[in-house]
């Protein structure tokens, strides 16, 4: 078998590069990460004519090889490293027919690296509408390459592209621009020092700001017989390079590319007027936001309830079918409950990414950035911060990654630091259960108190993000040049395939990324909760039975039996059961309930003396002033790994054994504190909700922030200030309300 052809797809953002990638590879694609960094690596396999296969790598979008971001530097790094296993045999530069001039800039740079380079002119279906005519043959000759005219929307030209890739050996690898023309004197000297090396590659190593290939760079600086130039001088030369490249491109296009502006039609003008209007613009954006929230919190509740039921059933089934034992318990209470806690978020995450990818694909997101920039700036944020802040309502992880488009480091850092304040979907189950427990059912102006509370929590989260951004903007002394630049792409109908792939990929990476942690914690918790070293733990059965014999059942158990009997009696009477039969069945039921109550008392005694119980007791003094007991303390503590484990932890602790919310809720409602009052009351409930609103309880987010800021300083700072703030606010709230 011959080796696959290595193909790299390169192109400006908004040229439809991903569509070309999707059409070449179909579902034969996988998304991973580049080692050590969180830049997405998309690769796939494509079958070419004559039985040849190609390995296609979709590189991050970039305007040129002059890099300013991590994503972009990756492209340069690959193209300069012949030893990389992904080093392309052939590069395919994707361009958009309307922005050909600008797209060709990148093309000429790649071609000058002496890599065989194919040019794809995408969106060819728009040519007639935009009054564009091309002389492809003449252009191929001028650019010294082969061109594929492609329309991914109409599925045209992909076969020709495949032919060209298969035939890559016949594509010229001669440069478009002789590097020496940039500065004959400088490049002559460079050539003399490094006689066997390619000048343009050396030039790129010298001029890139991003810290890649430090060894290469040092090698050039250390060359004794070669003195490089000052930054200023190098920049001037880069300007000259740009001018030379555009001269070449203009010469090429002059004879081969014609635009008849009279024939050009487009929605851009009128749509822009509406969407960036000072009143309608904001109004439309607001309506879209409301729709997104409606989808996330209302529409997704149906599939979520369904998933919830399925997992409760599965857990129940495992318990009833498999022989009792450690393994069954682990499966039913640890693993299935744990997986259920992840899968439940899929509908929300999928909806959010559906909307975000629709907004991005259509070109609307750039308009939002344009509208919001000036409003966000007083807070030290950029218009581009709006995307992370919206994404943050689903999950802070993709949101932090989405800050990469912010050019200004200070604005980007602030966005990263405040994004975790926005109410992510992991906080939702915590809020929902606490609201149901402590907020009364009444209505205010037609809105229920419970819905109002939830809305208020969202506003508090967003308000806190903005407020802390403002504070950080004052405190942080970081000098960085503001280089805000957004491309305003043409409006396009989103392609179903692209949207579907994005939703699929993002959901998958959330499930597997966050899933691993939640699953691990569930298992560890289960283990710590069902094991202990003390004698109290080992002799739990004995101790509890003795106590019951002496003092009778606990108040909680008595209530439990009474309530169950009462509701049974009511139901039976409604069914018309005779008094004698009823009396008999109640006796049987009471016996059964008593047994169950004893078992519950034993397991809760066990839990209290398990590893986790002892840890919780040690931790209790810290959370007591906030109104929590040791069990809530444990749930809060484990939530520092991920907030969504709160409900699951309480479920495990209360040994309800299933994640079904109703039962946990009833169990929580029945919990009493030392003085016999309900443990979850208005004061402790509000205090808990506020704690969850502000605390930095998510290991995955901290890990992402560490990677994106490249230091432990910022995630630790975030963990510290958010958690301390959360503690103080929760303390004040409890002490005021109690």
């Amino acid at each position: 078998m011959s080796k696959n052809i290595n193909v790299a797809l390169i192109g400006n953002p908004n040229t439809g590069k991903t569509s070309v990638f999707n059409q070449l590879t179909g579902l034969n694609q996988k998304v991973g990460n580049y080692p050590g960094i969180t830049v997405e690596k998309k690769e796939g396999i494509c079958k070419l004519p004559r039985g040849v296969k190609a390995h296609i790598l979709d590189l991050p979008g970039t305007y040129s090889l002059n890099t300013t971001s991590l994503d972009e530097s990756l492209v340069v790094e690959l193209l300069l490293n012949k030893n990389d296993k992904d080093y392309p045999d052939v590069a395919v530069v994707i361009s958009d027919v309307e922005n050909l001039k600008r797209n060709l800039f990148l093309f000429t740079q790649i071609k000058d690296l002496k890599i065989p380079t194919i040019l794809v002119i995408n969106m060819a279906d728009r040519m007639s509408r935009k009054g564009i005519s091309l002389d492809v043959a003449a252009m191929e000759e001028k650019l010294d390459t082969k061109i594929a005219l492609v329309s991914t929307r109409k599925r045209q030209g992909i076969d020709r592209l495949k032919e060209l890739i298969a035939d890559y050996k016949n594509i010229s690898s001669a440069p478009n621009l002789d590097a020496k023309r940039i500065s004959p004197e400088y490049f002559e000297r460079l050539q003399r020092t490094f006689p066997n090396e390619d000048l343009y590659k050396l030039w790129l190593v010298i001029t890139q700001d991003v810290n890649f290939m430090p060894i290469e760079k040092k090698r050039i600086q250390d060359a004794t017989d070669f003195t490089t130039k000052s930054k200023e001088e190098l920049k001037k030369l880069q300007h000259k390079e740009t001018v030379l490249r555009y001269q070449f491109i203009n010469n090429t296009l002059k004879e081969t590319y014609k635009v008849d502006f009279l024939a050009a039609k487009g929605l851009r003008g009128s749509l822009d007027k509406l969407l960036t209007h000072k009143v309608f613009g904001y109004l439309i954006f607001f309506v879209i936001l409301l729709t997104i929230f409606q989808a996330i919190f209302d529409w997704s509740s149906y599939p979520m309830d369904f998933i919830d039921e399925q997992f409760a059933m599965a857990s129940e089934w495992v318990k009833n079918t498999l022989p009792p034992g450690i393994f069954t318990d682990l499966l039913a209470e640890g693993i299935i409950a744990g997986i259920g806690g992840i899968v439940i978020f899929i509908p929300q995450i999928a909806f959010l990414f559906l909307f975000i990818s629709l907004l991005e694909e259509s070109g609307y997101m750039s308009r939002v950035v344009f509208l919001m920039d000036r409003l966000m700036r007083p807070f030290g944020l950029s218009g581009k911060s709006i995307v992370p802040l919206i994404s943050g309502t689903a999950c802070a992880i993709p949101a932090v990654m989405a800050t990469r488009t912010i050019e200004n480091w200070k604005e980007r850092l602030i966005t990263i630091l405040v994004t975790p304040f926005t109410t992510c979907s992991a906080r939702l189950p915590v809020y929902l259960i606490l609201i149901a427990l402590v907020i009364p059912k009444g209505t205010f102006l037609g809105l229920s108190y419970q819905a109002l509370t939830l809305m208020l929590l969202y506003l508090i989260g967003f308000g806190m993000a903005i407020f802390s951004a403002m504070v950080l903007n004052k405190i942080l002394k970081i000098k960085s040049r503001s280089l805000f630049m957004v491309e305003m792409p043409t409006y396009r109908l989103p392609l179903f395939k692209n949207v579907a792939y994005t939703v699929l990929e993002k959901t998958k990476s959330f499930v597997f990324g966050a899933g691993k942690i939640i699953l691990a914690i569930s298992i560890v918790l289960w283990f710590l909760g069902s094991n202990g070293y003390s004698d109290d733990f080992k002799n739990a059965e004995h101790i509890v039975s003795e106590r019951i014999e002496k003092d009778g059942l606990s108040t909680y158990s008595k209530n439990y039996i009474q309530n169950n009997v009462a509701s049974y009696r009511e139901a039976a009477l409604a069914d018309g059961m005779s008094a004698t039969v009823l009396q008999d069945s109640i006796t049987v039921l009471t016996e059964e309930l008593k047994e169950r109550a004893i078992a519950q008392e034993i397991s809760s005694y066990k839990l209290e003396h398990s590893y986790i119980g002892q840890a919780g007791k040690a931790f209790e003094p810290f959370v007591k002033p906030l109104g929590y007991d040791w069990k809530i303390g444990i749930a809060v503590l484990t939530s520092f790994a991920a907030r969504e484990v709160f409900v699951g932890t309480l479920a495990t602790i209360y040994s309800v054994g299933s994640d079904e919310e109703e039962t946990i809720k009833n169990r929580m409602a029945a919990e009493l504190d030392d003085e016999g009052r309900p443990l979850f009351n208005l004061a402790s409930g509000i205090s808990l909700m506020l704690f969850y609103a502000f605390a930095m309880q998510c290991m995955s987010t901290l890990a992402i922030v560490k990677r994106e800021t490249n230091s432990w300083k910022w995630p630790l700072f975030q963990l510290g200030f958010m958690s301390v703030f959360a503690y103080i606010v929760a303390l004040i709230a409890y002490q005021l309300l109690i």
Partner: protein
Amino acid sequence: MATVADLIHGQKGIIKDFSEHLLPIKLLELGCLPGNSVELVQVAPLNDPIYINLSGSHIAIRRSLAELIELDIIEETQAP
């Protein structure tokens, strides 16, 4: 000296030679080169950023950056 920031709605200008100060290279790559035309397409509600057509590239930049790009304004004779 007129800059891109001085353009009014629908007005065009031709970028002047800028040997004195160095503009960010990113701007040049998008076509901000001497002799190229700039048209002001839209202004954001709070007067900043501005949305320009830079010889075919539609981009939005902040005023602070726009002030660095010097140009000769072409007086439009007919109403847009």
